[in-house]
């Protein structure tokens, strides 16, 4: 069986490779960075234009008051679940193949939450009043309503952002010490401050291991709660197509699915851009692909269950929305979601596709297109065909919404590109630990095999 990672890599080599990646990436890195900055600039212009002319510039009006902004918000919250899955869950289950890739998954979590958090603000219109959603004393008689899922959203997302950033940072401290010990100038000063005097003493490692485990234990229920609460934004209303009991698990599985697809994309990107062929290996990519497929099937099942409950529930409003999705003006997008989200994951079962980086990159991007379409197909068709026929109206995004959507992808990528240039994107100490344990296990197995052959030889001799 192919090894997840070569056992003969020297520890000093790991330091060199990862530190080198922070100094000299390929040219494609700079090209991507420039494109992202340009797109973020375009997005900033679109936001400024929207504030100048009002929310009508985004073509949002009743009944279509949410549009792409809230669909994209849900999408980015979903992508953020990658870090929790790959880092926290696989850490608790002691799946050590996660070690070379989990750092970028955790960074992806933090940056996608930061991207998601922008959308309610952009959608708010009067951005200067955003603090009304926060729980604060009500001298001004604004009484924050704790019964509203929108307030739960704020609290859950702030908790998730804080916890994810701390989880990322705490897990990085030993690596920051490595950076401190091997750099000069501003980098040395920065890592020196961030490493907090880490020297790798047995006391520090003991506390570190317990802390990391405890944080992982907190992060899993937190991630589930965050997306359940986002699902509650929809499910707690009485809108047709949203008032569904299975929405929270459906959202959580969708989140894990898009997060995993996002990890495949970043895996390939990092492997190529930073020449990480020795660490981000094909066997590890195989495992991520299989995990993505398994989660895709859970999501598919929950989707089909939802269709079945609507169909056999015989609620005319719910059924009308479902028929509208499949045969109305949104049908091409809805069917694209079905093909990309439910059928395309079967491509991940092909060994040939899993070994073809360009093809796999395309598949992973298309999977996330499917997942983004899913969010849009949750938001717009329901609002188009609600309980009041006289308000029925379709929503098609204009240039402002589309530019801001594109800018959100650029913003996320920009944050990630800056992160991987300043911080180690592969966990050096965990890769060393992985190698140490694998060497130990194989040495022990060899010793046991030698012992066994000795016993057999003795028995034969006697």
């Amino acid at each position, binding site marked *: 069986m192919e090894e997840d990672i070569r056992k003969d890599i020297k520890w000093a080599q790991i330091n060199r490779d990862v530190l080198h990646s922070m100094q000299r990436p390929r040219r494609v890195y700079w090209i991507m960075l420039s494109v992202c900055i340009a797109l973020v600039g375009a997005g900033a212009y679109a936001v400024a234009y929207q504030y100048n002319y009002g929310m009508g510039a985004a073509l949002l009006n009743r009944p279509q008051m949410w549009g792409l902004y809230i669909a994209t918000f849900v999408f980015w919250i979903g992508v953020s679940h990658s870090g929790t899955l790959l880092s926290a869950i696989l850490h608790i289950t002691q799946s050590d193949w996660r070690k070379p890739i989990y750092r970028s998954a955790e960074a992806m979590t933090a940056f996608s939450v930061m991207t998601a958090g922008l959308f309610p603000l952009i959608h708010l219109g009067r951005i200067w009043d955003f603090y009304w959603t926060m729980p604060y004393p009500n001298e001004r008689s604004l009484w924050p309503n704790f019964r509203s899922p929108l307030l739960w959203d704020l609290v859950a997302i702030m908790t998730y952002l804080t916890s994810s950033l701390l989880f990322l940072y705490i897990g990085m401290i030993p690596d920051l010490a490595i950076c401190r010990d091997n750099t000069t100038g501003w980098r040395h000063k920065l890592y020196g401050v961030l490493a907090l005097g880490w020297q790798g003493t047995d006391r520090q490692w003991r506390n570190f291991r317990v802390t990391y485990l405890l944080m992982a234990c907190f992060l899993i229920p937190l991630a589930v*709660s965050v997306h359940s609460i986002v699902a509650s934004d929809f499910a707690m209303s009485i809108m047709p197509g949203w008032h569904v009991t299975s929405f929270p698990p459906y959202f959580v599985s969708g989140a894990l699915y898009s997060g995993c697809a996002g990890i495949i994309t970043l895996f390939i990107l990092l492997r190529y851009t930073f020449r990480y062929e020795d660490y981000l290996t094909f066997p590890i990519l195989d495992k991520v692909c299989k995990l993505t497929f398994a989660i895709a099937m859970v999501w598919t099942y929950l989707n089909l269950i939802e269709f079945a409950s609507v169909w056999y529930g015989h609620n005319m409003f719910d059924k009308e929305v479902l028929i509208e999705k499949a045969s109305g003006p949104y049908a091409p997008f809805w069917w694209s979601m079905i093909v990309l989200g439910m059928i395309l994951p079967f491509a991940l079962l092909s060994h040939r596709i899993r070994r073809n980086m360009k093809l796999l990159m395309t598949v992973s991007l298309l999977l996330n297109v499917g997942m983004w379409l899913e969010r849009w197909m949750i938001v717009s068709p329901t609002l188009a065909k609600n309980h009041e026929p006289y308000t029925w109206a379709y929503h098609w995004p204009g240039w402002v919404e589309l530019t801001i959507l594109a800018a959100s992808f650029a913003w996320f990528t920009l944050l990630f590109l800056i992160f991987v240039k300043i911080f180690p994107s592969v966990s050096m100490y965990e890769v060393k630990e992985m190698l140490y344990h694998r060497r130990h296990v194989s040495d022990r197995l060899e010793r046991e095999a030698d012992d066994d052959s000795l016993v057999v030889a003795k028995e034969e001799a006697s």
Partner: protein
Amino acid sequence: MSRYRLFALFDNFAEAREAIIELKVMDLREGGVEEMRMKSPIPHPELEEVIGARPVFVQRFTFIGAVLGAIGGFLLTAGLSQATFTVQPQGGKAIIPFPTDLVIIYEGTILLGVLATVLGFFLGAKLLRRGGTLYSSKVSEDQVGLWVEVLDSHYEKVKTMLWSHKANEVMEEEVP
């Protein structure tokens, strides 16, 4: 009596482990070893087989933080609901809407639990303190360091012992 600190670098954990065992034996027989620490590029929980189990108190911080977070979440929601209750003209609402408050209590539990865990880690691992001058960047690469504080009477003996265990380098300083 003056004391010395010695810091030896070894190629791997097994060599450092042998040196630690000998130091422990020496300390048990004749004393003289004041304190001992290992500095390594990866965690070695198996070290506790040699030096004995050492307690970690981070969980206590976590527990206290989580409980305070739950109480804080409840007080925030219930307290502000009371204020809301008096200003809202319509009746028939629960004074403390517990089912909806549970969400904030849940998030409060996790938020303060995480923050307290991090605080416990900083204090427990003795971060943010001056780590001392005896350190080598090789520890963050691939070597294992053994840091010992010994009495003057045992200084030479321990130093010789460290070299005998194939230490690559032994640094030293007198405790001021």
